[in-house]
């Protein structure tokens, strides 16, 4: 099959690799019909994520048609499914509590060592995202082996366009969980740092949860424009002092809840955290790396901090004093995708959530390397690249 493989920093290629096969009884194989490049894929592209190996197949936002099933899969050939990016077993203690991204069994036993050492306990597996998260081949490919197919993939009704439901795989549930973690109460003002896909879905979700005002913060004019379309007020942090603006816009109180949806772009997994630390210690650090710090300082007393943004290592100058003195609450974590998928599919079908606005580019899988470069170089206009294996290459 053809698949987008990582070969090194800024070097991704569409290679011919072996077709996947059923290995475990709960597996299925899907033929990918649509897959997206995620903002977090750019950190693989930029070479920031450790434990990558040349030839690793990328992609964790994908959907397709079931073409093969293992003996214990509950899916049927021909069904259209969206696959959650978190690989979770559905049988362990954490899955029982719907904490799917904390699944005990999604990672192969040997791959659990790194996270065990780094985080204390290993997390679930992820598709196409380094060997630390399992080394699973991802969805930017013609076919994918999907483990635990009886609990992960959600079946999509016939006749629904791929583009409407594709983002159930990651960014829509992630934006929704971020808003849920912000504990929004009716009448709240919510500030969202970052108007990437997760931030934009957080804006929509916050309104659906009863927020009266949402203030979106970014520096890309096009992305701020998208946030405005959903009813958010905006702050361009390149033109405006963010803390001051937030205080003035909330009558000196500060937002009731703050959502940091910036993540890896600013902070990175390991390497750029180290760079951040070096920069800070040599006074080269920039404010751009400070979304979570700024969010905590701006948040009102007794307010709530939600952090969907991905952090991997250690963060310098975390304002622990402000966090404690103001009595803030922080909720965070990788998304429990499986928990949110059914309700969010209904919300899409009922027209309560718009997903397709995000897609700025549609390309053939064969053109994926071009897609990575475009997304990397122009984040203002390129909001989402969707790859389709059956598109003819440009």
């Amino acid at each position, binding site marked *: 099959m053809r698949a987008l493989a990582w070969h090194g920093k800024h070097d991704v290629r569409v290679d011919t690799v*072996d*077709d*996947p*096969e059923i*290995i*475990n*009884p*709960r597996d299925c194989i899907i033929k990918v019909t649509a897959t997206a490049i995620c903002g977090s894929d750019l950190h693989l592209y930029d070479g920031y994520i450790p434990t990558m190996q040349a030839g690793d197949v990328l992609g964790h936002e994908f959907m397709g048609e079931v073409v093969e099933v293992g003996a*214990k899969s509950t899916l049927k050939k021909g069904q259209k499914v969206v696959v959650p990016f978190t690989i979770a*077993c*559905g*049988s*362990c*203690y954490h899955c*029982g509590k719907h904490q799917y991204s904390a699944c*005990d*069994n*999604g*990672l*192969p*036993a*040997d*791959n*659990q*060592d790194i996270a*065990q050492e780094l985080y204390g306990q290993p997390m679930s*597996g992820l598709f196409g995202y380094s060997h630390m998260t*399992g*080394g*699973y*081949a991802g969805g930017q490919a013609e076919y994918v*082996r999907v*483990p*635990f197919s009886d609990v992960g993939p959600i079946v999509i009704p016939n006749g629904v366009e791929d583009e409407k439901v594709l983002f159930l795989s990651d960014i829509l549930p992630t934006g929704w969980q971020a808003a849920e973690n912000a504990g929004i109460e009716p009448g709240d003002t919510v500030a969202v740092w970052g108007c990437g896909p997760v931030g934009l879905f957080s804006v929509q979700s916050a309104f659906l949860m009863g927020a009266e005002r949402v203030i979106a913060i970014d520096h890309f004019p096009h992305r701020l424009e998208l946030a405005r379309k959903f009813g958010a007020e905006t702050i361009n942090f390149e033109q405006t002092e963010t803390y001051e603006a937030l205080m003035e816009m909330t009558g000196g109180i500060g937002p009731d809840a703050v959502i940091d949806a910036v993540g890896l772009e600013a902070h990175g997994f390991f390497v750029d955290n180290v760079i951040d630390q070096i920069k800070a210690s040599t006074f080269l650090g920039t404010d751009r790396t400070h979304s979570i710090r700024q969010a905590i300082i701006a948040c009102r007393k007794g307010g709530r901090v939600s952090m969907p943004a991905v952090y991997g290592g250690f963060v310098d100058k975390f304002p622990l004093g402000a966090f404690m003195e103001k009595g803030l609450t922080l909720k965070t974590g990788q998304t429990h995708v499986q928990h949110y998928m059914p309700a969010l599919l209904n919300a899409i079908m009922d027209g309560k959530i718009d997903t397709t606005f995000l897609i700025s580019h549609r390309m053939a899988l064969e053109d994926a390397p071009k897609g990575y470069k475009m997304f990397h170089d122009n984040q203002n206009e390129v909001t989402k690249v969707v790859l389709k294996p059956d598109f003819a290459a440009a």
Partner: protein
Amino acid sequence: MTEDISTRDDRVEPRDDAPPTTRKDLDGDRELIGRAVTINRPAAELYAYFRDFANLASFMENVERVDVIDARRSHWVVKAPGGKTVEWDATVTDEVENESITWQSDDGADVPNSGRVTFKDAGARGTIVTATIAYDPPGGTIGRIIAKMFQREPAIQARRDLRRFKQLMETGEVATAAWTRKQHEEEMA
């Protein structure tokens, strides 16, 4: 000749309430390793699977196979470097149904060893399974090779084996990222 593992804990003067297998700063050569894992299944089910030693190879990476000789005795075939194997007979020296199994290698084993696994009910969380392995550093050329293999992060090996046991019991399969059967076979070799 290895000591019976059940008397072994008494040698360690207790300094706190941590299990005697926990790494302590006074330890020199560690020849006693142990790991605990919580498995979301009833103790009786876990005990029954483990007690049939023929099942051990399904989650213990270094164990090629265990042949059951009779109710107490078994023959172990364990992977050694260079595609070779080492073998020994072992005897169950003590067992309490649904609670614990203790075994010991018979005289003449290349790597005299003993092990104990306990199953403790953990209510809604399932069962806490604790495995403890003790071995004597062997002599001779092959012994040195085997010792090296056993000493290669034995605690990590034990932890990985217990994770696989947990995966098999909770999910019915052992997780793998392989995407072709050939890759999977190479992983298992």
